[in-house]
């Protein structure tokens, strides 16, 4: 018996989703390193992390929302449109401070509106954010900006940020890492962060023990919106422009993919920043490997979405929906 107990990896319950993801990542990494030329080179490894840093940053915001049992389908629209409007204002000759303040205020406002619709008007999160995402894209595109892609003005700090290297590692990686660390501190060590878990576990119970669930609900969508603005600026810094067509891409599903595959259950209350990092690394390796093998973009989409479907199925098997706390109309 002692031998069996020692062989802990065969113990039931050992294979949590988090460990499966880590195992898969390691396996995928090994296979890619052996099979793909140039994969294991330091430059490529850095580019893997760099390529997922924007995605990972967005996933941090999405994770905070999902842990509290919600979802933010407006994240990509907010990210692209806030950054695009900010750049548009700069190009139109606004001062840096004014443009930034206005963009930040707009992002806070849309986060508050999302939160208000969900917390106070009882609109399901998916519909509220689907509608607000559509509105944000439509409003900014038709009223505030003049073309699909807005360039970063020459000499702007965003342009320089794209080139900053610390120990040969691009600044984005540090920003992603820093965001993860701050979010980790927030979720683990602050009262409001703990509330996120309580509310995701059982909203009614959280309400009954006196947590101000409605303001706390709004807070999560505001945080997600602010993180989306940061991700938008980061994108602009590395690409030197903001292309709003990204809203129609599959980026939104990639974010959900990172969060779900990392092991944060969609029914809320579970997971943390480790899962986001794990999910981001796995997706980063996968995307990088597919690019090296030269799989066309449309096939990559098919593969990613199929993986996401499998992840959701596994998620629903590991974290089955609780019919007692699931609400009518919780679709």
């Amino acid at each position: 018996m002692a031998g069996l107990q020692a062989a802990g990896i065969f113990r039931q319950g050992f294979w949590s989703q988090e460990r499966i993801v880590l195992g898969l990542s390691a396996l995928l990494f090994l296979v890619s390193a052996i099979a793909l030329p140039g994969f294991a080179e330091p430059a490529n490894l850095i580019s893997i992390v760099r390529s997922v840093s924007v995605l990972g940053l967005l996933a941090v915001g999405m994770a905070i929302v999902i842990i509290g049992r919600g979802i933010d389908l407006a994240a990509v629209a907010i990210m692209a449109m806030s950054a695009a409007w900010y750049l548009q204002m700069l190009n139109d000759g606004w001062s840096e401070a004014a443009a930034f303040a206005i963009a930040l205020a707009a992002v806070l406002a849309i986060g508050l509106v999302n939160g208000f619709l969900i917390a106070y008007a009882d609109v399901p999160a998916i519909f509220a954010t689907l509608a607000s995402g559509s509105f944000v894209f439509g409003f900014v595109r038709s009223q505030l900006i003049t073309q699909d892609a807005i360039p970063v003005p020459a000499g702007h700090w965003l342009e320089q940020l794209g080139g900053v290297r610390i120990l040969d590692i691009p600044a984005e990686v540090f920003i992603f890492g820093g965001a993860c660390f701050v979010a980790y501190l927030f979720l683990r060590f602050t009262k409001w962060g703990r509330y996120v878990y309580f509310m995701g576990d059982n909203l009614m119970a959280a309400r009954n023990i006196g947590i101000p669930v409605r303001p706390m609900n709004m807070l999560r969508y505001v945080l997600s919106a602010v993180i989306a603005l940061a991700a938008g600026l980061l994108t602009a810094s590395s690409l030197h422009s903001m292309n709003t067509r990204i809203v129609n891409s599959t980026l939104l599903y990639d974010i959900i993919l990172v969060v779900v595959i990392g092991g944060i259950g969609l029914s809320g209350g579970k997971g943390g920043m480790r899962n986001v990092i794990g999910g981001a690394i796995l997706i980063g390796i996968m995307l990088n490997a597919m690019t090296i093998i030269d799989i066309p973009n449309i096939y990559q989409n098919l593969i990613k979405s199929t993986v996401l479907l499998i992840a959701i199925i596994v998620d629903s098997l590991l974290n089955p929906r609780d019919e007692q706390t699931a609400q009518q109309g919780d679709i």
Partner: protein
Amino acid sequence: MTFHERLQAWRYNLVPDHIIGEILTKRWTDNAIPFLALLVTIGVFGTAIPGFFEPFSLLESTRQLGEFLIVVIGLTVVMLAGGIDLAVGSIFALAAFAAVAVFFIFELPTGVALLASIATGAVFGAINGYLIGYLRLRAFLTTLVTLVIGRAIYDILIVNYGSLIQMSSASSDVWDFIGDGAFSGFSVPVISALVLAVVAHVALTRSRPGWHILAVGGSRRSAHNSGIKVRQTVFMSYVISGLCAGFAGFLIACRLSGAGPGTGLNMEILAITAAVVGGNSLGGGRGSVAKSIMGAIIVLVMNNGLIRLGYGTGTNQMVLGIMLAAAVILDIRWLKNRHKVLNELYVAPIYHRMGETQSAVPDSGTPYALNNRIAHTEYIGLGELEGPEDVVLDKDDHLYCGTRHGEIVRFFAPDYKRSEIFAHTGGFPLGLAIDKDSNILSCVGAMGLYRISQKGEVKQLSAETNRSYTSIVDDARLRDPNDLDIAPDGKIYFTDSTTRYDAHDWAIDSIEGRPTGRLLVFDPATGETRTLLDNYRYANGVCMAHDGKSLFFAESWACRVHRYWLEGPKAGTAECVIKDMPGYPDNINRASDGNYWMAWLGMRTPSFDLALRHPGFRKRMSRRLPQDEWLFPNINTGGVVKFAGDGRIVETMGDLTGNSHPMVTSMREHKGYLYVGGILNNRIGRYKLENADPAWTGPRSYWGART
């Protein structure tokens, strides 16, 4: 009557306030806002776009509407079952590709292309259905992912085979007709959509599978508990949605004779917005095909209108986002607050001036003067009973009464200590009677007229009467059947107290005071129920006169007793025999000395009589105060009154202590005793009558010695 009072009478009795509340109880009022939105949308874009209403323009725009509507109807079925199907956009595109591929690449007939489209839709729908129905994944996210997968497959197919399709020269008249032709102004998509709409409407509202879908959407757990195969129903709803999207894909393939990268793009958000704007509830159970049609027209007219008016990129998404958010908020708030609005508006009191009455004060010397005679009765079933509204005794002296639990309890003679549940009817059994075959007949509150055989078998005799032409609420249904009696020819005469309130809200009817009580007759020979008399203020107790040629019935809130003639020169008419009593009359029964017993459920008070003359006051009270604090008629003191057939009051009994029988709703004489029941009491009282015929029983009085 002062001028002010006359004004009040006119204001509250002639203006039909109650209609607003009654209309709001109708489910079709949910459609009012979408319908207004529809009119506004068509009006605005119809005037803004030149040539909007020209036949050719309509034909072309309705072609697209037909396809869109088919998709929305499929989505509606899924939403009614409590899910959502975002994948319709991809299914639509893939089905269009399937049709185009079969027709242009393989050059097969149009029929095969149609089959290919429908099969594509069904397979895709079945995958969604399996994942969501059987694996119980979250509908929104799952179909979001299958939408992306479907779109990726479609993009791959278009990239690889798009050129093959464009180079093909296949053509067919049938294909072209579906795409371009029209039967007297109606294109194939419109006809298909209309046929599908009718079929879907009938299936959802009139068929078992349709009801299952609504039941699962309304309450999944209850549907499961009542034996509906929930998972299979959910699965089928996605298959239906897939089929609809597949068929619509075939139609667009014919219309465009090709498939491009933009086919079906963003269709899912358009379709969801359409379904929700039309008023279908997220989460299921509430919605209709008619709502979807309205929503589809609104969304499509707005979407195409904005494009034709030349608004730039993004405007459509902006407007769609606003519409979706507004519709969802409206839907959720309306669902949540509808009953509050209804509660506020439904009670619509009218002016009523009660006549001067004689005093009922003890020792006042009037025939109504109360005493304390039924304060000391022998209790039957104390603490075992809840709400014996009526009591009746059979020829073997057993005692029957109803309870608020929907049961009829039998107490065994001679001492009435032992009891059994004789039958379970559900509802709240109120008035009781025994027919000549010793069956128990009962007016079951909120349900109808029922017969219980001696073996305890329950049979519904009547639950509805003829509907009047001017009614808004369904006055065919018996809402508050209250008391009954049986004529010598076997016809059953009974009252339905109000058409405005359900049985348990009888007290609110007294606040309103609207005369909607009815006297009805059920004919066992034909099984039909007819309304004989209408417009009484809470029609209550019924009693056949000793000679069987007329009957008495009580009008509670007016404190009157009427006599309705079955035979003789006045047959078919009613006359008031007692008016302006000091108490509210309830059941009436025969007495052994040729007179009649009548229960008083409560006593009039000057304050409530005054309130009846101030409908505005009662209206404010019902809107602003919780129901516990309303001024109701006094039911703390009741009584038993004996009256003669000509309306003369013979004697009055009461319980001034209020301990034994505060509210009396019935009394039955049997072998020298009077058995007293009360709807809010927990006992039956047995009172020894002096000077009563000790051999007289109800069954013998009605059906003679042979029973």
